[in-house]
Every structure is written in C-alpha cells, then in structure tokens.
C-alpha cells in the first residue's frame, strides 16, 4: 500500500522568503511522486514529478523537490515566494509503470503568502 503524509496543513510565508512544504511517503515499491497545485476554485495542475530519474526535480514557477529515499521524503521548495503562489499544494504518490493512474493524494498544505 502507498500513502503520503503532508506534515503541515498550513504554511505562512512573506513574499520574497523561501517556501518549504513537507511530504513524507510510504510505498512498498520505488514510487513515482508528484506535487500538484490547486488555486482557489480551480482544478489541480501538475507542478513537478519524480519517476526514478534525477533525484532533484525542477518544476514550473520556480518550484523544485528532492527525492530522499533514506528519509522517505519529497519536500517542495521555492527560493522566493510570490503572492501568486498562494494556493493548496498536494503531494501525490503512485506505483510506477502501472498503465493506469491510481494516484494517492496527501491531505494538502495551504500556502499563505503575505506582502
């Protein structure tokens, strides 16, 4: 069975400061891991994904995440927050090389960005 735990339900930062959203995973297999973002009243959009290639993954809008097998973590970071980053972020795990996407979502972290 696979699961992800997002350690913070809310994270508040000031504009221009670094962002860290934490995610730990549990998987019987080498997992595929993703971060999705959901802006208010919108659908989810893929930020980045890890699928057993490079452990440091770069995504859209300046976000990146590092896969650390020893820590079973896949934390999302950004050097400098922008007001438009305020949204809900979901860490997601799936079993790799499965033909059909059965993604397991974390409970989400709301990122609040203040001026």
């Amino acid at each position, binding site marked *: 069975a696979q699961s992800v735990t997002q350690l913070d339900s809310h994270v508040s930062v000031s504009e221009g400061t670094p962002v860290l959203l934490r995610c730990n995973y549990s998987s019987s297999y080498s997992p595929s891991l993703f971060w999705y973002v959901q802006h208010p009243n919108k659908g989810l959009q*893929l930020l980045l994904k890890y699928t057993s290639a490079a452990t440091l993954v770069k995504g859209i809008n300046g976000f990146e995440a590092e896969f650390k097998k020893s820590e079973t973590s896949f934390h999302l970071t950004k050097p400098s927050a922008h007001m438009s980053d305020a949204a809900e972020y979901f860490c997601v795990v799936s079993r790799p*090389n499965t*033909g*059909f996407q059965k993604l397991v*979502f974390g409970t989400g972290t709301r990122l609040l960005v203040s001026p």
Partner: protein
Amino acid sequence: DTAVSQTPKYLVTQMGNDKSIKCEQNLGHDTMYWYKQDSKKFLKIMFSYNNKELIINETVPNRFSPKSPDKAHLNLHINSLELGDSAVYFCASSQVGRAGTAPTGELFFGEGSRLTVL
C-alpha cells in the same frame, strides 16, 4: 480552449433527487477519471475509464454510476442524493503510456463541479 471541461460548475439540489455531471476532454487522452474532494480538501479517486472500459471502481455507493459514451466523455450520474454527497467532483484525463513505457503520471483536471445537497 479548455482541455477538460465539466458542467455544471455549481449544482444545488434536494436530498433524494437524481443529478448528472458531464465531462469532456479535447486532449485526445484515452483515460478519464472522477475524483471526489471533500470539505477538508481530501481528494479520492472514484472511477477510471480507459477507452470506454471501466478499470478503476473504488468503494463507491452504487447510487453513483459513471458512463463513458466515447473516450472523450465521462459522465457521472448520482441517484437518490444524500447530504454526504456534497463535495466538489473533479473530472480528469491522462494519456496511458504505450506498452513498455512508463505513463507520464500527469493528470489534467477540470475546474470541478461543486455539488450541494440540502
């Protein structure tokens, strides 16, 4: 040009009624999904169809019946609505990887249909 579109965006109805939500994707994907997002933002898969064939059917009451007339459409019909059905329902699509390759893992989501049952 909206890639995954759902209608209606908002739906308010009484307990016991039957309602449908429609979804269409113009991405040429062969797999479509319905996800339910509850009031705490938790997302859980309900159904998945690949080329009109049901491939994932999670533990969902049989009051929920998906229907895929073709691979670009996946509709969700709900009978005898209950208060607990109030949620945001998201349609999504993806391209399954060709045989021997890993799928991309990216789902393309619609903007959601907010169902409120009174």
